[in-house]
């Protein structure tokens, strides 16, 4: 744990973006998420940590209703985005996902050109009125995804031809091209090498200025590096949630302590 740098950041009182109360998730008979209450703040990076199978990815996927695509998954309780229940029958998950973007564990660019990868979201949501608009959105997104300089000369090249780290930043750029308010990241660096990881982490830190970022990670160092708030999940329970510095230096729950010191997990 020597290389762990815990960055001190000013964490003021921020608006709550997502608020979950009594959230339960069942996969068939398996009770995967048990009674989770959490308030995720705006313009903050929130990290979900915990051992494999603890439910952190499952909970993340509840936040933009990606669990809807799994037939046997059932979600109970309330999750509010800006005070609106996202599981309300009136909510169309497609509209929700435009607001709550997602980046996945494995870089998954579409097998299309880099340009089309970015332009796809804005196109289906009608964000651009004409080609010039779209070009601008693509450039802006790629710049914010910190990949513009690497790909600006080959926007027509297939997105799948990029390196792993570039692909992941392309996916992040794709996610922010639809101008979401929340960005969910499910272990975005697990398939990347340390250099690419560092680039993506730097990017996440920049994204904090405009978005509420929720990141699931297996690496405690990463959680410590990029997040301001950390939630520790264990066996489907949200064990502890608080300031990242606090969680890593002075955890109040013995399970958290066991995990961050490497005794469980």
């Amino acid at each position: 744990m020597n290389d762990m740098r815990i960055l001190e950041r000013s964490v003021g009182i921020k608006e709550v973006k997502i608020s979950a109360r009594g959230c339960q998730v069942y996969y068939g008979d398996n009770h995967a998420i048990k009674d989770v209450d959490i308030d995720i703040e705006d313009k903050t990076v929130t990290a979900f940590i915990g051992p494999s199978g603890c439910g952190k990815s499952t909970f993340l996927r509840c936040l933009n209703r990606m669990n809807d695509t799994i037939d046997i998954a059932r979600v109970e309780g309330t999750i509010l985005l800006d005070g609106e229940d996202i599981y309300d029958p009136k909510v169309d998950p497609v509209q929700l996902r435009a607001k709550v973007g997602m980046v996945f564990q494995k870089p998954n660019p579409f097998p299309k050109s880099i340009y089309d990868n970015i332009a796809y979201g804005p196109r289906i949501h009608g964000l651009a009125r004409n080609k010039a608009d779209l070009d601008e959105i693509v450039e802006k997104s790629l710049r914010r995804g910190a990949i513009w300089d690497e790909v600006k000369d080959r926007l027509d090249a297939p997105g799948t031809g990029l390196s792993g780290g570039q692909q992941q930043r392309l996916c992040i750029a794709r996610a922010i091209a639809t101008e979401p308010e929340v960005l969910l990241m499910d272990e975005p660096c697990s398939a990347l090498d340390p250099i690419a990881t560092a680039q993506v982490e730097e990017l996440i830190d920049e994204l904090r200025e405009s978005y509420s970022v929720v990141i699931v990670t297996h690496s405690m160092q990463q959680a410590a590096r990029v997040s301001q708030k950390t939630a520790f999940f264990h066996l489907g329970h949200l064990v502890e949630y608080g300031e990242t510095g606090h969680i890593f230096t002075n955890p109040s729950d013995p399970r958290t302590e066991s995990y961050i010191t490497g005794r469980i997990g």
Partner: protein
Amino acid sequence: MTDLSANQPRRGAPAGRTGGSLYATDARTRRRNAAEKRFRLYGMVAVAIGVAFVIALLSVILLNGTGAFQQSFVTAPVYLDPAKLDKKGARDIEDIKKVSTFGYSPLIDEALQTMLAERGIDSTFEKPKEYRALLSASAAAQVRDYVIANPGRIGETVEFRLLASSRVDGYLKGRVTRDSIARDKNISAAHLDLADAMVAAGMLRKGFNWAFITGADASESRPEQAGMGVSMLGSLFMMLVVLGLSLPIGVAASIYLEEFAPKNRFTDLIEVNISNLAAVPSIVFGILGLAVFIQFAHLPQSAPLVGGLVLTLMTLPTIIISTRAALKAVPPSIRDAALGVGASKMQSVFHHVLPLAMPGILTGTIIGLAQALGETAPLLLIGMVGYIASNYPQGIGSGFLDPNSAMPAQIYEWAKRADPAYYERAWGGIIILLLFLMTMNIIAILLRRRFERRW
């Protein structure tokens, strides 16, 4: 690693296991190596047997079938005698049409007789009529068609390339021998002598048989005239029906089942039934088509439309199964990616999943079509077999609705006929059919290669 004792010498273990040099193979390793060697041998034998069968099949087909692509022709100048063809001399097309092929046959007989006499070829025949066995019965019709198309040439001598009779053709190809005609009433040894002399004089020679590829079926007694062309059109119209129906229905069904349908007992039941349908014997589809399309819906018998409908039923399970496999093979991460940027389910399917599954879908469709193209049994039941096609369809509509045959049905029909000349044509038909199937399979492979490396 878990069972450490396995690496230590145990009591009763083979001696080779307890230490010993790495250079000496122990008994156990030798036995395992021998087993592997035996298994490889079995595999090679199995492959060799398969290859031998394929080679045998292809060589037999080529040996028997290539003959059908060659046909013997007699080149003869025929004097179009006005006294017989246009007695009134008015060159009125209606008058000319009144002369039947019976009026033309003597002209051809005489033409042969004079030509042989000019070349100094002796024949023992007394009557000109006796020459007739050298030529196909279609010769008179060929000359008559020419005269009706060109009435102005009556009175001239025109050189014709007339089909030799199937016996003479067989003699040139070695199918008919002097022994085999001993009890044949259609031809005598004298005819064969004459044929030999005509070959020597260059009047009778073999040429490429375009009529076999483009022509229509012919009656039992004129195998030299029969061709695959019209039944190929029958197959083509059937395939159009199959493609037009089974591709959209099959793809729509599989997309719904794979991407949208809830997974419950009902969809499971549908799934099982689709798999079962793929294994239903094709003749069952045939009798279903007979009952539903012909007896109940009163669609025309023997029509490519009905054949296409029946084959569609047969092809659908194949297409659905392969399409679902292609859709399943698209990585779920692509679906997640699309949903993650806020695409609807349908957008994710049509913008991302379907294009990626396309090569698989097309391959499955082409293989399904190839299967349908070679299918004979259901056609027997809806009457697309027998002596049906004698003319090209008049147009698109009649192509779908007029009685026609199909390639495999035509082959079956020829193989049934008594004349050995038809047997040869059946093999020739198989070559054409196999060429079509091979082309389709090659297209399928190319499509797969072309689009495969996309992610």
